[in-house]
């Protein structure tokens, strides 16, 4: 046996256990998810269980709550990712100018990231946003802006859950972009400064193009996180009031485990799965093209 085949067999022996485990724990359950979405499985009416073909998918078309949650998913994902990148990049550029205390800032940035999303949701719901109790209510009243029921009003609730997600994950974008900024070659800036480029021109024509790979990665990772967001919204609003913050994750959960309509819930989850895969592949193709 020559060395090359030997190495290949060795590599396979090391890789196959993990591969098999992943196929069994992720891919097979997803096949079962799609199969479930073709069934009628309603645990509150178990006698009706049986193959339903595409009936669940046909039902989606006329389901206003589904279309609303699909729209909310796009709003939630789009706005949280855009905010994280914009705020994270702005803060990273700002912090690059601050010489002292960068270590302290990094520690502060770690806190939201290590917090369980369910705790982030609970803390915001009680300590920050609760009427007559939360600090934000106190602040808006002290500033003479009046009192708001942040999680009780449909539109404010959507703003609130977007704010919670942005609060928790902007540090991630900030830390990655700060590290990329710090790694940029300083001599390009010197050259630009000699050419009398102003701050905006330097940012627009030097910093931004050099940062593009890092920004693309941040966008990909943040989108995946936003598309699988669940616990913080669940803890803060439970998808409500009504279905005002019910993104697809929440809708699939409520259908499956509150209304016990698992077949239909599986159809909604399958749609979400397809969206996530399409977005991921699209972004990766974009990354390769650049």
């Amino acid at each position, binding site marked *: 046996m020559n060395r*090359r085949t*030997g*190495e290949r067999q060795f*590599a*396979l022996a*090391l*890789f196959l*256990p*993990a591969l098999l*485990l992943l196929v069994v*724990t992720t*891919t097979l*359950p*997803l096949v079962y*998810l799609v199969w*479930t979405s073709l069934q009628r499985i309603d645990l509150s009416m178990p006698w009706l269980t049986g193959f339903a073909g595409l009936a669940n998918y046909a039902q989606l078309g006329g389901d206003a709550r589904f279309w609303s949650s699909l729209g909310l998913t796009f709003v939630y994902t789009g706005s949280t990712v855009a905010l994280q990148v914009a705020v994270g990049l702005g*803060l990273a550029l*700002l912090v690059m100018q*601050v010489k002292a205390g960068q270590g302290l*800032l*990094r*520690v*502060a940035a*770690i*806190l*939201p990231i*290590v917090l369980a999303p*369910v705790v982030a949701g*609970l*803390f915001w719901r009680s*300590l*920050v946003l609760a009427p*007559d109790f939360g*600090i934000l209510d106190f602040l808006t009243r*002290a500033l003479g802006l009046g009192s708001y029921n942040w999680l009780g009003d449909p539109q404010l609730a959507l703003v609130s859950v977007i704010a919670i997600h942005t*609060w928790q994950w902007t540090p*991630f974008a900030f*830390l*990655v972009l700060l590290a*990329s900024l710090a790694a940029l070659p300083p001599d390009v800036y010197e050259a630009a400064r000699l050419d009398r480029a102003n701050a905006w021109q330097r940012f627009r024509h030097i910093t931004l193009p050099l940062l593009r790979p*890092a920004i693309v*990665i941040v966008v990909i*990772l943040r989108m*995946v996180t936003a598309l*699988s967001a*669940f*616990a913080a919204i669940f*803890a803060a609003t439970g998808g409500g009031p009504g279905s005002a913050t019910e993104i697809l*994750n929440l809708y*699939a*959960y409520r259908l*499956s*485990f509150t209304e016990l309509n*698992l077949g239909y819930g599986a159809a909604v*989850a399958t749609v*979400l*799965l397809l969206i*996530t*895969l399409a977005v*991921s592949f699209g972004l990766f193709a974009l990354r390769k093209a650049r």
Partner: protein
Amino acid sequence: MRVRNVLLLGGAALMMVVWTFPVLWGLLTSLKSERDVLAYPPSILFEPTLGNYADVLFGATTILPNLVSSVIVAGLTTALTMLFAIPAAYALSRLDLPLRKASGFYVLATQMLPPVGLVIPYFLILRRIGWTDTYQGLVLVYLTFALPFAVWLLVSYFEEIPREMEEAALLDRAGRLRALWHVILPQAKGGIAVTVIFVFLNSWNEFLFAVVLGGNTVRTVTVAMFNFISLEQTQWARLAAAAMAGMAPVIVLGLIAQKHIVKGLTVGAVKGGGRR
């Protein structure tokens, strides 16, 4: 120039306040008596009490069993994940693995799956084989996010090790195993530690799988905290104490490993890993 510096420092300080506020305020709230909690405007000066911690740790609403559950689930998940991920990452990063690109892409794709798409089939499967509310059931499900994440993070660390170091040891099959054990593992110690921390952290913080697939036997601390608010709607101080106690391990872990986490985030991000 002065004004600009003041503005910059002000901006940085504001950012720190916003990021640390909920946790610090939670800590303060957890030390208040129920009477001080309800004071309006919120009080900053008050007589601190450890009564809430006594309640949530040793009282009727104890979360100690939940902390134990979380340690078991997160510990087992981390151990199993590393056992499978280290060899796989080594094969992906350093060896002539057949279909290497496709394999790497498959691992990456499994990392992006929305958890709600997995929790529905697992609910049905685990119910059928009697594994709901068991440690083996929950750990199996946790592998779905822990394993792909760990493989990708480790690959990025393994790739940084200079190739010459292992070339010498690469003579025969036994030599390769020895190279992994004696060259790669010691060199990647830091990366492995970061991976262990991240996997443990993500498992500790997980909520959706735990709330659907757990139960009275296996109830992790995140689920216990959530139940707290629905059961004891107005007892904010106790909720805060439970949350602080439940989050203390990950906050301490995060602060200790602070530098490594930043590096882990960036390495993982630059090479395409990283999640949550």
